[in-house]
């Protein structure tokens, strides 16, 4: 009976008003390109320093511009690139939103080769190689604030993100480096 009623309702809708059963709002989750700070380890003293500044708005596909409803971070990864010498690499990752104070969101330390795996080592299951820094909670709180602002006003401007990585690795004449990547996910209205 329910089926017949549904079918009848659809036919009536078709004849009278057209068929439009699209959910509204329809919020889709967009996995954005990661914000990455990569640097080459200095062969001389083994130190490295890398920084990047990205306006998050530039990561949003044009079809969703000004239609955002939320923002979150779903992964943070550290990866060694190039040749992997023996020895320990260690460092910290810092994030600044706009002109906010810089926050240390992570620390990492371990054998260089351990970070040389495909896609790097995630904070999610690092086995102790990557740990949340003292500013991690504040970082997550800031993301939540941005997300709440987007939920109430989709015209909210996304901030720029400055990601900085610093640390040290084994001094070696080979070319190798370290990348810190933050993966953002945005909710966007597709209606």
């Amino acid at each position: 009976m329910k089926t017949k009623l549904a079918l009848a309702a659809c036919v009536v809708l078709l004849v009278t008003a057209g068929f439009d059963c699209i959910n509204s709002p329809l919020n889709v989750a967009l996995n954005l390109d990661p914000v990455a700070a990569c640097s080459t380890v200095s062969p001389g003293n083994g130190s490295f320093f890398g920084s990047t500044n990205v306006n998050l708005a530039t990561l949003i596909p044009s079809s969703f511009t000004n239609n955002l409803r939320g923002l979150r971070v779903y992964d943070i990864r550290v990866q060694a690139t190039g040749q992997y010498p023996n020895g320990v690499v260690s460092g910290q990752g810092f994030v600044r939103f706009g002109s906010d104070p810089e926050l240390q969101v992570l620390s990492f330390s371990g054998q260089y080769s351990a970070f040389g795996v495909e896609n790097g080592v995630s904070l999610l299951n690092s086995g102790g190689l990557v740990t949340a820094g003292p500013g991690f909670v504040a970082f997550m709180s800031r993301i939540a604030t941005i997300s709440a602002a987007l939920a109430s006003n989709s015209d909210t401007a996304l901030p720029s993100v400055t990601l900085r990585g610093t640390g040290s690795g084994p001094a070696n004449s080979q070319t190798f480096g370290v990348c810190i990547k933050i993966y953002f996910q945005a909710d966007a209205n597709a209606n």
Partner: protein
Amino acid sequence: MVKQSQFYFSIAAMVSALTFGSLTARADDSSVDKAIKAFGENQVRGYVQPVADIFGANMGAGWYRSAEIPTTGFNFSVDIVGMGALVGDEQKTYTAAAPTGYNPSTFKTATIFGGKGDSVVDNNTKLSYRGSDGAINTSIVPLAALQVNIGSIYGTQFMVRGLPIPSISGSPKVSYWGAGVRHSISQYLGDEPAVHLAMSLTYSRISVGDIITITNFGFGPQISKKFSIAELYGGIGYEKSSMNIKYTPSAGGTPVDITLDGVNKFRGTLGLVLNLAILHIHADANFGSITNFSAGLGFGF
């Protein structure tokens, strides 16, 4: 103008055209298109799997309304067939994989026919990941076809079905066609068998530009028996349907090119047709992994 043009179309044609309109035909700008293109290849499978399941099931329905096929002589009929597949709870959610390292590693979220997307929160870091909302809110997905049946050569009948779907400016071309052949088995059982038996082989295809292609192949026996103007019919069948989907994700990255198999592998059909001279009114139910129905009007002899 839209309402006027809808009026002049048959209801069946409208059901299909507008269903495809909602699903895909307005693809360049549609909400559904945006929702699909938000996914990368690894995430989109579960989200769109019900489309393959439901359209595959619909495409395999409504091919016959009797197992009686004359052995020889010219016979011809035109049927308008409407099909509708129920969208059950199992088509509204799926188990999605969370990004590597999440605890828990999977979470339930909405398919294209679902409601709000759900999130998974990693127990250790409190990082979170969300699934997209469902795009289409419906309990039944309709499809329709115009079918021509022509025979008979040694108890063999040929079937062609399709639907003229109007082009919509700026949207991919949508086409739907199918073909099949049926052969009478009861012709080998004597002049007046207690029941009629036949076998059929069918193939149909829906394409939406070069974005989506859905095919359905079906094979199986049918049985029917007349009681005055009424005729009970039924059958079982094996079927295989698949959907290929190609697009470039809206966030960029590797173009998606995947093929999904429909869940329906076997179906049982039970139906009734009223034969009123050259008018045939029929309805049947199809039971399998997806439950669907078909009904229609046939004109011919």
